[in-house]
C-alpha cells in the first residue's frame, strides 16, 4: 500500500470545516454525547465516555490531527486531557484498554517506518497510523474519502469504548 502524503493545508482545513458543519454528524455528536473542540484548523479533540465498568464512568480524550484528511483518516491518539499530549512515561493512565478486532490501542507500537504521531497507535483502518504500519485492510475496510469522515474515526473509537472489548483504564 502506498504511504500517505499530507494534503494541501488549505484543502485539509476546508475538509475539516466541512465535517464540522455536516448536519448528520452534528446530530450524532449530540446524541452520543461527544464533546468536540478545535485546537486549531487542523486539530480537534473529542472527549468520549466509555461504557460503565463496575459502576465507574470514565471519559477519555482523543486528539485528531487532520493534515492528511480527507484523502486519509485523521491520526487519532488518546491524550492527557490537561496537556492534550501523550508523553510515553507520564500519560499511560489516560489510555483505555481497547482490544476490539476493529480498533485496538497500542501504548507503544513497534513502527517499521518513522511516524510523526507515534509512538501510540489506535489501530483501525479509520486512523492514519494504520496506513503507516504493516496492515492490509480489505477493499471494504479501507478509508474512502467522501464516504468516510472524521465522524467515522470518532465513531469507531466510541463503538469500541462501548463494547465488551473495553476493559478499563491503563494503570501507570
Amino acid at each position, binding site marked *: 500500500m502506498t504511504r500517505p502524503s499530507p494534503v494541501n493545508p488549505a484543502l485539509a482545513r476546508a475538509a475539516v470545516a466541512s465535517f464540522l458543519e*455536516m448536519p*448528520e*454528524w452534528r*446530530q*450524532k455528536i449530540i446524541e452520543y454525547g461527544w464533546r468536540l473542540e478545535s485546537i486549531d484548523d487542523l486539530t480537534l479533540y473529542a472527549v468520549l465516555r466509555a461504557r460503565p465498568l463496575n459502576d465507574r464512568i470514565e471519559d477519555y480524550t482523543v486528539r485528531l490531527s487532520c493534515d492528511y484528511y480527507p484523502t486519509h483518516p485523521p491520526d487519532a491518539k488518546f491524550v492527557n486531557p490537561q496537556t492534550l499530549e501523550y508523553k510515553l512515561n507520564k500519560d499511560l493512565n489516560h489510555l483505555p484498554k481497547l*482490544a*476490539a*478486532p*476493529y*480498533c*485496538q490501542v497500542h501504548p507503544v507500537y513497534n513502527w517499521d517506518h518513522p511516524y510523526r504521531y507515534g509512538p501510540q497507535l489506535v*489501530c*483501525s*483502518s*479509520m486512523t492514519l497510523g*494504520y496506513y503507516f504500519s504493516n*496492515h*492490509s*485492510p*480489505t477493499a*471494504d*475496510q*479501507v478509508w474512502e474519502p467522501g*464516504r*468516510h*469522515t472524521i*465522524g*467515522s474515526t470518532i*465513531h*469507531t473509537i466510541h*463503538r469500541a469504548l*462501548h463494547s465488551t472489548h473495553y476493559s478499563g483504564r491503563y494503570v501507570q
Partner: protein
Amino acid sequence: MSEKDDDKKPEPKEVRVTVHYTMTAREKSFEAKVDETVRQVIEEAYKKLEERQRPGDQYFCHIEPRIDLSPYLDRTVRVLMSQKTCVHEQPHGNKLVFGFDIDADTGGAGK
C-alpha cells in the same frame, strides 16, 4: 388508560423502523410488517440507505445496551416485540418503533 385496557389493545401489524448506518451517520425510516424477519428488515434497510451489505457488517439495537441482533436474524419482528428487545412503543403514542444500527467492519488488529 388502565392496564386492562392495554390488554385489549389490538396487536399492531406494523412497526416504524429506523436504521442508523453508523459509519456515515445516515438514517432512514420505513414501515415493516411484524411478521417479517429481522433479516428481511435489514435487507430493506440496505436498500433505503443505498448501501450494500459488506463482509463483517454487524447489527445492534440502537438504544443502550446495544444488543447484538445476530441471534435474531431469522426471527420475526414479533419475536423481538414479545421479548422486549429493540422494539418499543413511542412515548405519547401507540406506534411501535424498531431502531437498529448497522456497524460496518473496519480493519484493526492483525489485519
